């Protein structure tokens, strides 16, 4: 009898109804388990038969992971909250519009209805060598096919690389970094809280992961503190088409103003490195200035310092420079 391969490989579907149960299942099955949130990253992997988990832990039935709640003057967003809910949430819109704006730039309305915040920040890279099943470093192999001189690497990284040059595809990630959000990750023993900028890791730390989460870990919720509420925000995402596309480069920035002066800033970019990059040097540079043209130019130049293009992605360097300039320009008098 012929073996039919045109289907998702068989797996056990586990549907816990509490975080505790989910974590217990993830811990029990370790690297054999796959976390299913909205499924938009997952089903690509499964249908392509590149990932073949034995067990799928579907988080859809865990009510405590859904919804947006007031918490410690800030907001607590369950990891299973859909992007549409975030976009439409009144307090997110009014106080944290940066996040609403970033979430609204994700793909299409249908995908945002299904996609979750947890899934958006935890999704794997879109490097096509990796996703096509090539045995690259990120897949546990010995080669980065995307960084070779002959490679098709227009969408790949210009900084922060270490053997792997894939980029983080999340739209909400830089916004969460700019808002100084905290990511609460639960394992079998205890919850751990990570600053958003530390939640995302580069290949120099672990080339097979994009976040701090290891098998058995579960992102349960995201806390957005009040510190940047109602700040001046800027989000811009450059992509090849107007919707349903990953960013080439995006920037998310929060500015705390005192009159015409930038008192404090938090700026993050994505699409340029294997992780969203917080631009601390740029933040220090613009603090105390009015964001004038000279500051904008200096900020842009500083942002791309150390960037190194691959064969086909040198456009990303001026693009990133300009996005950072524009972010600073957004608050200039």
């Amino acid at each position, binding site marked *: 009898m012929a073996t039919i391969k045109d289907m998702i490989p068989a797996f056990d579907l586990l549907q816990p109804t509490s975080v505790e149960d989910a974590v217990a299942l993830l811990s029990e099955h370790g690297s054999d388990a796959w976390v299913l949130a909205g499924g938009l990253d997952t089903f690509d992997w499964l249908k392509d038969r590149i990932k073949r988990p034995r067990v799928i832990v579907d988080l859809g039935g865990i009510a405590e992971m859904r919804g947006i709640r007031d918490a410690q003057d800030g907001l607590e967003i369950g990891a299973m909250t859909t992007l549409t809910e975030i976009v439409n949430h009144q307090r997110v819109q009014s106080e944290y519009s940066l996040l609403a704006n970033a979430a609204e730039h994700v793909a299409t309305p249908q995908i945002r209805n299904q996609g979750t915040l947890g899934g958006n920040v935890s999704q794997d890279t879109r490097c096509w060598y990796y996703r*096509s*099943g*090539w*045995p690259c470093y990120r*897949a*546990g*192999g*010995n*080669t*980065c*096919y995307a*960084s*070779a*001189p*002959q490679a098709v690497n227009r969408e790949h990284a210009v900084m922060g690389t*270490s*053997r792997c040059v894939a980029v983080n595809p999340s739209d909400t990630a830089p916004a969460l970094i700019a808002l100084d959000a905290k990511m609460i990750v639960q394992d079998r023993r205890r919850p751990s809280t990570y600053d958003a900028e530390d939640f995302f890791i580069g290949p*120099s*730390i*672990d080339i097979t992961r994009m976040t701090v989460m*290891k098998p058995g870990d579960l992102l349960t919720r995201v806390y957005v503190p009040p510190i940047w509420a109602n700040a001046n925000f800027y989000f811009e995402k450059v992509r090849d088409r107007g919707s349903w596309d990953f960013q080439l480069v995006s920037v998310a920035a929060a500015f705390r103003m005192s009159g015409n002066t930038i008192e404090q800033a938090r700026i993050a970019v994505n699409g340029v490195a294997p992780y969203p990059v917080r631009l601390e040097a740029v933040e220090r540079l613009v603090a105390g200035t009015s964001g004038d043209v000279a500051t904008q130019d200096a900020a842009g130049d500083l942002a791309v310092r150390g960037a190194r293009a691959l064969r086909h992605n040198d456009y990303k360097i001026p693009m990133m420079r300009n996005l950072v300039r524009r972010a600073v320009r957004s608050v200039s008098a």
Partner: protein
Amino acid sequence: MIELWRSTQNPWGQDVLIGVSWDLMWAAIVTAALFLVGHTIWYRMRAGAEAAAEAAPAPAPAGLPERIPRHSLASRIFHWTMSAAMLVLLITAFVPVMGLEIPSWVTWHWVAGVVLILSIVYHIIHAIGWQDFWSMMGFGPQFFREGIGHLRHLMSSTAPEPKSGKYPFDHRMYHHAVIVFSLAAVVTGVIMMMRINTPFWAQNPYILSDQAVGLVFAIHGLAGVAFILLIASHIYFAIRPEKRWITWSMIRGWVDRDHYLEHHDPAKWVVTGEPAKGSGALADSSVSAPREDG
């Protein structure tokens, strides 16, 4: 069941070798631990019998100084540089595999590898030009006689430890093992370095086929696993009380006369010349470690 290799599939469903299984790393760590514990127990059990069977030290040749140079400053610098590089290489290779994060471990690893290569080149030049190369490298009847004597000594507490020239049989065997696995690690390491960006060259991931690259990684991994055993045993013996005089000689450069007479054959390691001024030790140039197999 321990696996030996790691492999994966390419998009055409072909199996591609990736490297050694990390089960081997754990096997090497467990083996090293068992060896250390086993040797400690074995040594304690034998200690009494060996003391009774201990041969009297050879009479001291006339004019033998109190301190006898064993390792020149150049040799010691090499040894400790190589040690530091080797430790960094082992830590950066295996600690991330154990799940502990070392940021930029690849950079640390290749930089340590370059230091190791440079130190080996230095050592080879130094050994050929300024040391008695064959006293360490020679394979001859004397080498094998000493090996058989060592084996007898290990098997029976009444068999005396054979006295050696400057370099005892076990040191030479260890050195030979290090040569083999270092060369394997260095040659494969350089090939692996060509596949990442370094200041020396732009990366070329297609320098070899995926299968050949897998073989390179496997050899490199095997050498690394072998070094877990080699380094663990080396450090263990270096800190054992009865061997510390050798370790001190790698720090101070000399051995005292008593240990020289107790463990070495003055006929095989001929010490001539006058003591170095002020130190009580002989100058390097006055020490002869003749080729034993000639």
